[in-house]
């Protein structure tokens, strides 16, 4: 225990003296938490729309003003023909074309129905899907407006309609930040845990200091603990800064569930991740190798964790990978506790899995560490 104390002292001295690492630990999380949620916002705004109005009636004018005033669309311009409008898509000026046919108003009144044509640039699938959706909504809204105008007071409705009323639970205003910020917080903690721990150990290998330590009475487990504990604490600190300073003060996110439970899970999660860092460090001989390997894992962890895309939409093989990714569980837990207020009984499954990760990753790391030295 005495040795461990000195190792920890030394480790913290080195970390706090490292001018390159300190900002990485304490500033980068802030910046990332402030920038990333804004960039990862799925609410698509400013969709450029080009309108081919061949009717020029008061109805078509009304529709256009309804579209442009919705806030989602920006009028890229009017085009006389569809081909002209398509040129605007080709030039990248427009994402969508709405074609209003000749006699739109006349036929609508006379025949009680009319068709509109929408062409969407689908290079960006998300933008295309959402843009198409928004536009159909606006048009159907417009449609019911017209119906209301036409209904004569005192008469029965001509056709029964089903009206949908939805209520958004746990995130009533569908605030995208509520969903993203806790997830990004998880990714940050993951990086600190795996990268920094692995790099730190490999640095000692590179500098040869590990040899010098090996010729002292310091035992291997003491050395390993001396490396894991500081990064465990730093991981906790980064999470705390992110949760209580950035998430609360900037985004107004207040955990609904128990903060203690959240930290309990974080503690186990960090042990698992540090085990991964340790495992990487037993394979890598240089910091460059460690960095590349850690980067490979972080990329997969991030993209296949349900942070950006829901797991249910993944193909079976990807779903399996996501399920053996510790980040998936932590993101799930963070969202459950912060947004939904889940308690321990809801999270037993997650706790069991993460404890398993912690045991397996650390076990592998220690086994390989023994073997190599």
């Amino acid at each position, binding site marked *: 225990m005495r*040795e461990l104390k*000195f190792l920890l002292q030394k480790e913290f001295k*080195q970390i706090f003296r490292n001018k390159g690492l300190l900002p990485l630990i304490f500033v980068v999380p802030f910046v990332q938490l402030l920038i990333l949620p804004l960039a990862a916002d799925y609410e698509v705004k400013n969709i450029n729309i080009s309108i081919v109005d061949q009717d020029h009636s008061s109805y078509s004018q009304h529709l256009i003003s309804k579209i442009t005033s919705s806030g989602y669309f920006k009028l890229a311009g009017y085009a006389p023909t569809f081909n002209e409008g398509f040129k605007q898509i080709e030039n990248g000026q427009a994402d969508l074309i709405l074609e209003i046919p000749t006699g739109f108003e006349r036929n609508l009144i006379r025949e009680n129905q009319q068709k509109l044509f929408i062409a969407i640039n689908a290079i960006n699938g998300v933008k295309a899907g959402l843009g198409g959706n928004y536009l159909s909504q606006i048009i159907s809204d417009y449609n019911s407006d017209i119906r209301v105008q036409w209904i004569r007071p005192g008469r029965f409705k001509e056709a029964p309609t089903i009206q949908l009323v939805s209520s958004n639970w746990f995130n009533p205003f569908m605030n995208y930040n509520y969903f993203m910020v806790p997830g990004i917080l998880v990714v940050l903690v993951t990086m600190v845990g795996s990268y920094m721990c692995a790099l730190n150990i490999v640095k000692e290998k590179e*500098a040869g200091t590990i040899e*010098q*330590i*090996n*010729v002292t*009475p310091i035992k291997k487990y003491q050395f390993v603990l001396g490396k894991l504990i500081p990064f465990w604490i730093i991981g906790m600190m980064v999470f705390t800064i992110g949760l209580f300073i950035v998430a609360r003060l900037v985004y107004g996110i207040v955990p609904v569930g128990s903060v203690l439970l959240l930290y309990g899970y974080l503690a186990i999660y960090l042990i698992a991740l540090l085990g991964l860092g340790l495992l990487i460090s037993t394979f890598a001989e240089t910091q460059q190798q460690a960095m590349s390997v850690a980067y490979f894992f972080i990329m997969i962890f991030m993209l296949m964790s349900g942070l950006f895309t829901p797991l249910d939409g993944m193909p079976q093989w990807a779903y399996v990978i996501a399920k053996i990714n510790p980040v998936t569980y932590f993101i799930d837990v963070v969202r459950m506790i912060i947004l939904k207020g889940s308690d321990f009984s809801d999270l037993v499954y997650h706790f069991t899995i993460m404890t398993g990760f912690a045991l397996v990753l650390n076990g592998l790391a220690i086994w390989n560490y023994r073997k190599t030295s």
Partner: protein
Amino acid sequence: MADVVLNNIVKTYNKGEVKAVNDVSFEVRKGELFGLIGADGAGKTSIFRILTTLLLPDSGTAYVDGCDVVKDYKTIRKKVGYMPGKFSLYQDLSVEENLHFFATVFDTTVAENYDLIKDIYVQLEPFKTRRAGKLSGGMKQKLALCCALIHRPNVLFLDEPTTGVDVVSRKEFWEMLKGLKQQGITILVSTPYMDEATLCERIALIQSGSMMMIDTPDQIIKKFPDKLYAVKANNMIRLQTELRNNSQIKSCYSFGDYHHITMENEQLTIDNLRASLQNEGLYNLEVKEITPTIEDCFMSLMNR
């Protein structure tokens, strides 16, 4: 029992392809300053790493201070000091912090053993708050020696401590080693510099993982089998070609201003040699008999 004992140690790398240490046996007596002399890649570092329990030998046994390097590695680690060839202290910690750290790791304090390192540490004292990484080469060596000594080890292993250090610092370093020897510490030091060999009490000449000779420097020089001559002329390159082409010359190596030669038999006299070289058009000839150096011995052993 001697402080360091090696019995038929073998170490190979790459699954037996590279033989780094080949059946090496030697002993270092208590309180001795023992030198391991050999070129780069001779296997010196492998021997050090086996003795400091960082590497397991393929076969053979070795004891340090009475403990087996394989079985009692934990005890050995408490009793030896090791200074690797590469500077391996924490570059981002200061001189003081490094020393303090290694003292605490061995469950001791700097103050407790200060007398042992005092002579060395006074030179470092003005820089004690400087980061170890920012020290000059000679200062780094001194700090590394202090750190290796801070727990008062019984045996000190110094792997090429003077490689890459200037002449003055090298001299100082050897003076320090002599001082430590007087404190009763057994020292095993390796060096690729032959001129440092004479500063050791006994030396082992090692080449390609095998021991060539183990003795005191004087004895090794005495065992030199032939008479050795130093030859000099106006054109040293041509002189070397001539000497090497002469079938009566056994060996010819260039040593600074002179070529050192040995002769196949004693029939060839200095005068004969002089005459034959003059015939080849070389002038300003100088031929004299000299006492061999360790380097001469090493070269002659290498070619046997």
